[in-house]
Structure formats: structure tokens, C-alpha cells
């Protein structure tokens, strides 16, 4: 009996020790697992944060085109040492140097140098139509870097932005490539006399009308959104090309004439400074008049071309406000390819004439200014005789 008791006791002790040991082991392994999980979470957090960090380079735009640094090339241009460049970079440097030799002259200011490069790019480059093709031709991959852009003169937005930045960096002008929040578009930020400006050559190519040249954040912000915490702020209007086209107005009535004169002078972006007091209500009325003007020119017939209001915004200027306005002017290839030039000219005159007649019929008819034909039957309960009478009156 005693023996049985001792055996039971030993067994109980063994079971207890086993239980305690298992608990310790479990707690220890749980602690280790916890440590692993915490490390894993930390690692994931770090990766997530890195993913969200905005970068200037090594960013893919539209899922296909990568913004890459070209500082090796601009550094080689400045130092004269091309030993670290590969053949493709050397060729890019040669092409870019030749262009700068052609367009930059001694004594030019940084602003003049920028303008010269902008003008050259707008005139000599064209959009790579492959950007929107579902399965692009293989050669189109080169349109996102200065090598392909300068060689084939075709570019997507990344190509314009990186080529412009290469030119600026070769001339020691501070410049960055910006991309929008959705990573579908890119352009440049350039530093002139300590202030930054947005320049988007892609949007001006073919026209070169400076409507996307040296813009401030407020104007650019109407068109695009980007990481304003990462990229420097652009608040100056000094080198905005529209400053050259500053005009004054003293009333709302002056605006249509002023807009027309600017369009006739091919000044598509300009500032309007009002000599009369500007309060919130007046600002809204200016925008209303501008909207009316836009409707009128938008529906106006001009053979092969047209205008529409691109942007309008009030901006703080000196001690008050200034109104910035930008019209988009487009010229279209005539679709009438089967007509001779002489026929086109004659037909344009005829079309203009009949469009004017149509215009007059709507705006000079005193009885019906809304363009709708009224249904007499619902107007009143007039008898059949009355309506017959009305008809005969009309005929008279």
C-alpha cells in the first residue's frame, strides 16, 4: 500500500514538473513568436513607408515610362570628362551639346536660356503617338529618355521632362522632374533667381504659346496634383510669360474687347490688372463675363482652327489681385483633303456667310430669344378658328 502511495506521489511530482516545464516552454515559444511577429510588422511598416515616399527619379509613369537621372551626362558636359559615360550616354551628350551650341549665345540670362530651350523643343519635337496604342511598337520605349527624344524627335511626357532637365542641368540651372499623384504625367520645376516655376513642354509642343511655361503652384494646381511636401513650392509670377502680356481694365465692359485684341495679337495667356476696386463680387462677375466670352468663341466658326478657355484664376499680386487667363488655340488639319485650295477658300466664305445667317436668325429675332418653338396648343384653349387666323396672319 505504502509502495503504491510512493509511486503515486512520484507520478504526481513528475506530472507537475512536466506541466510546469511545458508551460514555460510554451510561454517561451510564444514570446519568441511574438518577437518574430513584432519584427515582421515593423518590417512591413518600413516597406510600406518606403513605398509611399515620393522620389524624383526611378518612378514609372503610366506604368511604362521611367524617370531616370541624367546627371552623369550633364556632369560630364560641365567637367569635360566623358570617361565614365557609356556609348549611349556619349551620343546623348553629343546631340544635346550640338543643340545648345546652336541656340545658346553668350550673355544670355538663365531665363533667356530656358526660353531658348523651350522654343527649340516645342518646335522640333512631336508627341509619340505610341503612348496611347494598346500594344506599342517596341521602338517607342526610347521616347521617355533624352537619347531617344534627341535621336528620333518623338517623346512622351517623361521624355520631354527628362530632356528639358538635362539641358538645364548642363547649363547649371537647377531643375527637377515632377510627377503627378496618380503617376500618369510628368513635367519640370525650374529654379530662376531663387524661385521655382512649373514648365510642362509636353502640353505646349506644336504650339509653343507659353501657356504651360513658368507657372506658379496656384495655376498648376488647377491642372494637376502632386506631392507638394516633397517638391519645392513655386509662388513667384516674375518669369511667367503672361507677365509680358499684362493689360489693364477698369470695367467689366472692357473685357470682351481686351480678350479679342489679345487673341488677335496671338497672346493666348495674359494677366488683367483692374484699376477699379476688386472685391469678391466683382471677381465673380469677371469670371462670369469670361465664361460668356468663352461660350461665344467656342461656338464661333473659324476654318481649321478654334479657341477655348483653358484656365482662369485670381492671384495675389502687389497689394491687390490680378486675373490670369489662358486660352487654348488649336489649328486643325483640314479634313477636306479632296478639295483644291481655291475650292476650300470659296467654300469657307460660303460657310461663314450661312453661319452668320444662322447666328442672326437666333439673335435678331425679337419674338423668340430662347430658340425653342412654342407649342400653341398648350399655351391656351384657343379655338381652331383662332389658330387658322394666326396662320393667315403669319402668311401675310
Amino acid at each position, binding site marked *: 500500500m505504502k509502495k503504491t502511495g510512493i509511486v503515486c506521489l512520484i507520478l504526481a511530482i513528475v506530472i507537475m514538473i512536466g506541466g510546469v516545464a511545458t508551460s514555460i516552454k510554451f510561454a517561451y515559444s510564444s514570446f519568441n513568436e511574438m518577437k518574430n511577429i513584432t519584427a515582421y510588422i515593423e518590417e512591413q511598416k518600413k516597406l510600406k513607408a518606403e513605398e509611399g515616399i515620393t522620389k524624383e527619379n526611378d518612378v514609372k509613369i*503610366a*506604368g511604362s515610362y521611367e524617370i531616370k537621372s541624367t546627371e552623369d551626362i550633364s556632369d560630364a558636359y560641365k567637367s569635360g570628362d566623358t570617361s565614365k559615360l557609356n556609348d549611349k550616354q556619349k551620343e546623348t551628350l553629343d546631340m544635346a551639346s550640338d543643340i545648345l551650341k546652336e541656340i545658346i549665345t553668350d550673355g544670355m540670362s538663365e531665363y533667356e536660356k530656358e526660353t531658348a530651350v523651350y522654343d527649340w523643343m516645342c518646335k522640333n519635337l512631336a508627341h509619340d503617338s505610341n503612348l*496611347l496604342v494598346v500594344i506599342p511598337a517596341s521602338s517607342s520605349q526610347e521616347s521617355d529618355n533624352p537619347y531617344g527624344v534627341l535621336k528620333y524627335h518623338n517623346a512622351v511626357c517623361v521624355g520631354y521632362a527628362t530632356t528639358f532637365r538635362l539641358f538645364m542641368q548642363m547649363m547649371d540651372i537647377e531643375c527637377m522632374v515632377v510627377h503627378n499623384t496618380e503617376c500618369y504625367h510628368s513635367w519640370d520645376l525650374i529654379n530662376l533667381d531663387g524661385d521655382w516655376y512649373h514648365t510642362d513642354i509636353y502640353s505646349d509642343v506644336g504650339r509653343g504659346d507659353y501657356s504651360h511655361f513658368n507657372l506658379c503652384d496656384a495655376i498648376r494646381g488647377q491642372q494637376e496634383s502632386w506631392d507638394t511636401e516633397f517638391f519645392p513650392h513655386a509662388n513667384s509670377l516674375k518669369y511667367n510669360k503672361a507677365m509680358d502680356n499684362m493689360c489693364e481694365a477698369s470695367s467689366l465692359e472692357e473685357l470682351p474687347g481686351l480678350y479679342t485684341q489679345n487673341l488677335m495679337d496671338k497672346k493666348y495667356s495674359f494677366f488683367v490688372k483692374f484699376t477699379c476696386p476688386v472685391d469678391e463680387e466683382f471677381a465673380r462677375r469677371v469670371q462670369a463675363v469670361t465664361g460668356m466670352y468663352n461660350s461665344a468663341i467656342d461656338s464661333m466658326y473659324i476654318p481649321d482652327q478654334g479657341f477655348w478657355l483653358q484656365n482662369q484664376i485670381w492671384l495675389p499680386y502687389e497689394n491687390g489681385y490680378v486675373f490670369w487667363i489662358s486660352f487654348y488655340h488649336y489649328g486643325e488639319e483640314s479634313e477636306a483633303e479632296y478639295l483644291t485650295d481655291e475650292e476650300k477658300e470659296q467654300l469657307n466664305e460660303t460657310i461663314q456667310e450661312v453661319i452668320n445667317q444662322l447666328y442672326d436668325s437666333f439673335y435678331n429675332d425679337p419674338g423668340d430669344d430662347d430658340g425653342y418653338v412654342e407649342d400653341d396648343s398648350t399655351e391656351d384653349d384657343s379655338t381652331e378658328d383662332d389658330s387658322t387666323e394666326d396662320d393667315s396672319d403669319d402668311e401675310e
Partner: protein
Amino acid sequence: MKKIIAAFILVLTMAALTGCGEKTEEVKDVNFYDLRTAMLNATTKLPEMQTASSADDNASELLAYVSDIDYEKVSNFFVSYSKEGLADEIVVISVKDEADAKEAKESLQKHLDHRKNLFANYAVEEAARLENAVIKVSGRYVVLIIADEYTQIERAFDDMIKEN
């Protein structure tokens, strides 16, 4: 008795083998060249179109432009798209297993969203045309249609699939 049992087992084995044989028979697609021709000819309003398909040597790379589905799951496909980069596009993918049709549909939706973003940024005047895009699943077939006369093209697709 043994002979009867042996014969019975033989009959059962034959029946089982025949049954298995029917089950493993490969699913047959509609002829994709005919399908593509019928859909492209359903309207005269398409611009000049270019086509990539499962008949091409680098078919898996070509499909990757419109769908990220594993190519192993795909039986046949074609992508017809505007040469000039207009919005017009027709994609048909047939998957080997009907259960993968959902994945193929999601991949085409992703592609459509990408195209919408591209056009919103670079060709606003075309962007509105993508709003009428059709994506639908019909058995093992998934179709994407971006075209002005999309209903006619969709009907041509339905007719061809029904005939099959």
C-alpha cells in the same frame, strides 16, 4: 461463376474508362479567327485596327499588355486595337477553366481603368468614349469592347458563342 464475375468486372471497367474518357476530353473554343472577324465586321465605325492573338509567337507577352492573368490558364485570346492610339479596342479571352473567368474579367477591368487614366491625362476628347466600355463574362469567355457601336459588336460575339 468465376467467368460471370470476371465478365461483370470487365464491363464495369470499360464503363468507367469510357466515363473517364468523356470527362477528360478538352473543351473546344469557338474558332477565334472567325470570332474576331465577325466582331470587327459588325460595325463600319471602327478605325484601322491591329490585332495580336494567341496565334502569335510571343502570345504570352502580348496578352500581358491587357491582362495580368497567368497565361497557363488561358486557352485563346485576341486583342484588336486602334493603330493610331484611339480608344477603340476589342479583347476576348477564353480560359481553360470557367472558374478562372472571374480573374480574367478583373484583369480586363484593371486594364480599362489604366486606359481611362491614360486618356484622362493625354486625350480628354477620347476619354468619354471609354465610359461606354462593355466587360462581360459568357461561360469561359471574357470580352471587353470599347467602340461607338459596341452593342452591334457585343451581339456578334453573343451569336458566335451561341453557335458554338
